[in-house]
């Protein structure tokens, strides 16, 4: 269910909580308690309506099921995956990523050149890009966007990390953009900053409150134009016919909200939506055998890790939070990770839809993928874990509990996302694995993990980030620089890690323009991060998605060989999607299961009827009195 991690957010765990209450109320009303389990299954039994895409006027509509709420449609504020995906579709960035291997390809800029000093970058801006209101898009728009982010703190909320090192940005002519840097910056061809139209945005007053969702269509120059948006209901986009790379093939793209994963899958089965993502293993298995549905099981761009609280602290030197002191002992952390069977997690929890965790960056980003050497690897070995604890002085007491030298038992808490089934499932395994070592674990599942996390009030936590083709951001969140300024502030830090050696390497890679040398530095950083032992990557979950082949004839994955469709670093999937011919079968699947569930529902209904009769009898007695 919770699948869409935003690529970058300043929160410790990027799974933003969508407002659940409405869902709860709705399902609460629907479930009416005892029929709870049987009301939902009835849904797929409803007569399948005509396919949505075959609208009356023959428009070819591509409907995508989404669950994550839009945080803002302003490119200066948006951080969630659904919003940044929308911005990819509606605005141009200076450069784009190639769908094959994610190297930088022309976007708003057609060419770029660093100076010999590495401090001045000159971008050539394309002359065939027009804003959707007919105004020519020029280098002036790009310069204005960057200057706004450099001068207005509120405009730097989402992407300020890219412009923090900018000294001066100018547009000497409509086709030239010059960026002067304070020091070299390796991310100059991976500036994930949407360029906005100056003539629209210079009228905006307060960037911290402007959400860009009042006037439609929203003026942009990407392959799609947002024409309508209703919070948690839908986002409608129409193709930009004048898009320089070519107009998209579908007549309309709709992001439709399904807050329940099963409801989205049912809609896909019926043909109401063309695409859905974040499937569970059971859903993927069921859809694989369905007609006209293709399941796309692609290596993910996300890591899924276990982190320990290294002692929360801020830049002013203050420590805060109530993390368990035993976790500051490297031996305890090593023993914990030694007792985690990552293979079992991949096999049993993800049921093969993931890759066993190694280094920090997923293997999909081959250039930066790093694996621990034999000597440093913390392999699964519960017996060794017990020895590690024995050697470090954590003895088992009579009751089978490990206690430290200070007499405090090793009882930990782990922060878990209440909406993520994987967190809960792995929590159960950890409880048993660590329980056998004599370590207690309390799984604290919360809707909002941000509050205890930012306050440092946790021992362990489940953590996960989507990684961009340029790893700068996910590396930056473990530097001392990312710590909050004071305990009251919010820093970009992921887990309060602050390590001098790591920071030194980070500074080196940030100014390294040679990709091979930079990759080498990044790998050394990953090695250092692994050795500090504050986090252990358990798995790289796959992106498990499905789409209707009778609605989408072809679509580009990224990477092209075996890649994902939702949440790409670019607009490739939706821009390239080709509608299928007008055949369009209706979805009539899982009917046998439906019938059986229907019988179950009938039995429950009969029981309810019995209750009702019993009550009736009583009330008639009263009436007769």
């Amino acid at each position, binding site marked *: 269910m919770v699948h869409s991690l935003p690529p970058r957010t300043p929160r410790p765990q990027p799974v933003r909580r969508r407002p659940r209450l409405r869902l709860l109320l709705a399902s609460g009303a629907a479930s009416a308690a005892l029929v709870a389990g049987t009301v939902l*299954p009835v849904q797929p039994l409803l007569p399948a309506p005509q396919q949505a895409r075959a609208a009356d006027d023959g428009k070819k509509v591509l409907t995508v099921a989404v669950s994550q709420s839009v945080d803002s449609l302003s490119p200066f504020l948006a951080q969630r995956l659904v919003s940044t995906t929308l911005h990819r579709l509606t605005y141009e960035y200076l450069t784009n990523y190639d769908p094959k291997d994610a190297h930088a390809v022309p976007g708003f800029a057609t060419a770029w050149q660093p100076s010999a000093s590495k401090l001045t970058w000159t971008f050539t801006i394309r002359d065939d890009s027009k804003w959707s209101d007919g105004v020519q898009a020029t280098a002036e728009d790009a310069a204005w966007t960057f200057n706004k982010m450099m001068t207005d703190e509120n405009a730097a909320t989402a992407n300020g990390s890219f412009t923090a090192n900018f000294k001066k940005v100018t547009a000497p002519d409509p086709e030239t953009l010059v960026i002067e840097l304070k020091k070299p910056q390796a991310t100059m061809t991976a500036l994930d900053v949407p360029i906005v139209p100056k003539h629209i945005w210079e009228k905006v007053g307060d960037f911290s409150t402007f959400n860009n969702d009042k006037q439609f269509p929203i003026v942009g120059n990407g392959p799609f134009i947002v024409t309508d948006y209703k919070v948690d209901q839908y986002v409608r986009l129409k193709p930009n016919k004048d898009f320089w790379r070519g107009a998209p093939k579908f007549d309309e793209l709709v992001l439709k909200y399904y807050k329940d994963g*099963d409801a989205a899958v049912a809609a896909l089965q019926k043909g109401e939506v063309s695409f859905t993502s974040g499937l569970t293993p059971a859903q993927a298995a069921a859809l694989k055998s369905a007609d006209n549905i293709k399941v796309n099981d692609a290596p993910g761009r996300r890591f899924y890790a276990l982190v320990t609280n290294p002692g929360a602290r801020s830049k002013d030197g203050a420590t805060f939070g109530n993390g368990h002191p035993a976790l500051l002992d490297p031996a305890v952390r090593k023993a914990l990770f030694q007792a985690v069977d990552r293979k079992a997690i991949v096999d049993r929890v993800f049921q093969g839809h993931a890759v066993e965790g190694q280094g920090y960056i997923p293997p999909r980003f081959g250039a930066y993928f790093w694996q621990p050497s034999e000597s440093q690897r913390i392999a699964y070995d519960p017996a060794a874990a017990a020895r590690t604890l024995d050697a470090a002085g954590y003895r088992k007491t009579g009751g089978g509990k490990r206690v430290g030298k200070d007499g405090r038992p090793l009882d930990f808490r782990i922060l878990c996302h209440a909406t993520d089934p994987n967190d809960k499932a792995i929590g159960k395994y950890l409880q048993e694995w660590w329980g056998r070592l004599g370590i207690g674990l309390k799984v604290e599942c919360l809707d909002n993990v941000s509050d205890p996390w930012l306050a440092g009030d946790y021992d362990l936590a489940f953590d996960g980030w989507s990684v961009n083709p340029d790893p700068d951001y996910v590396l930056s969140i473990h530097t001392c620089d990312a710590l909050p300024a004071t305990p009251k502030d919010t820093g970009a830090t992921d887990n309060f890690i602050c390590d001098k050696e790591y920071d030194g390497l980070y500074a080196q890679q940030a100014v390294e323009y040679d990709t091979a040398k930079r990759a080498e530095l990044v790998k050394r950083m990953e090695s250092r991060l692994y050795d500090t032992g504050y986090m252990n990557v358990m798995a790289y979950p796959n992106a498990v998605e499905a789409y209707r082949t009778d609605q989408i004839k072809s679509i580009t994955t990224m990477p092209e060989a075996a890649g994902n469709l939702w949440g790409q670093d670019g607009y490739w999937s939706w821009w390239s999607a080709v509608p299928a011919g007008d055949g369009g079968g209706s979805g009539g699947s*899982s009917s046998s299961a439906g019938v059986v569930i229907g019988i179950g529902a009938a039995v429950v209904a009969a029981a309810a009827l019995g209750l009702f009769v019993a009550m009736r009898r009583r009330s008639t007695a009263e009436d007769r009195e």
Partner: protein
Amino acid sequence: MTSADPSTPTPSPLPDGPVPSPRSAVPSAASIVRARRRASLIRFWRQYRTHRAGLFGLAGLALVALTALAAPLLVGGDVQSVTRAPGKALEAPSGQFLLGTDQFGRPLLGLLIWGARISLTVGLLAAALSVAIGTLVGVMAGHFGGWPATVTMRITDWFLVMPTLVLAIVLATVMSRSVWTVIVAIGVTSWPTTARLVRAQTIAVESRPYIERARALGGGHGHIMTRHVLPNVMPLVLAQTTLGISSAILTEATLAFLGLGDPTIVSWGGMLQDAREAGAVSSGHWWYLAPPGLAIAFVALAFTLCGRAIETVLNPKLAVPR
């Protein structure tokens, strides 16, 4: 609503008149009370026996209670273990796993039996809590009257019009996730009905002459409330508890289904939630969904049937003329 009146004078099982000899069989006060209670219990059972639905409910409850108590013997404590799960994920029912397996490969039949423990515990405790609060508020308000009663009754009214489920969801959301949270959330949201009933009954009881007599003899508030009022509202409270259990079990299942229960504990509502999270609904794994749903319906029905039967026995006005 109803007003049970069990305080009809009970014929003493002992002959009236002077005691023949001080030495032989002087019935002490305690033994008289014991004998009288036994007699009324027998009478109660005789009447209860005539309600066939009530007997069905009782038999069903006995079956479920026995299963829950014997769960460690029937399935073993290992059934909850994910690391020692015997099967593969989401297996269909077979000879080895009669109801199939869940996403961890654990046998669903074992989980269903184990889940009965939590569902029954939460149902009983939450209903007891709710009725305890309701009785306390009701007796106090009925006994003291005046402005404190008005205030407490307005609070009761406020709770009465609040949708219970919404309030329980809010409570379960703000408190940490555990079984106790669910018990408290159900308990503190479902007491107003009991409070109203008990208050009405208290007022009715207190208008009787013997209360006035007790007061004239110097009986204080505590004495009257605990010795005279409480025994007379107890039957009503008992019936209310039995009925409350079934709604508490349903609310527990609903909360767990909505993901507000303790995810580390196996309960029937939690099984439904697990099934939903695993995608069992859209992938057609009906054997994961149907048994817990039916079990919830069965237990709730059993408690309701018992509760209705008890109510009818204690309040003859409700009896259907035969």
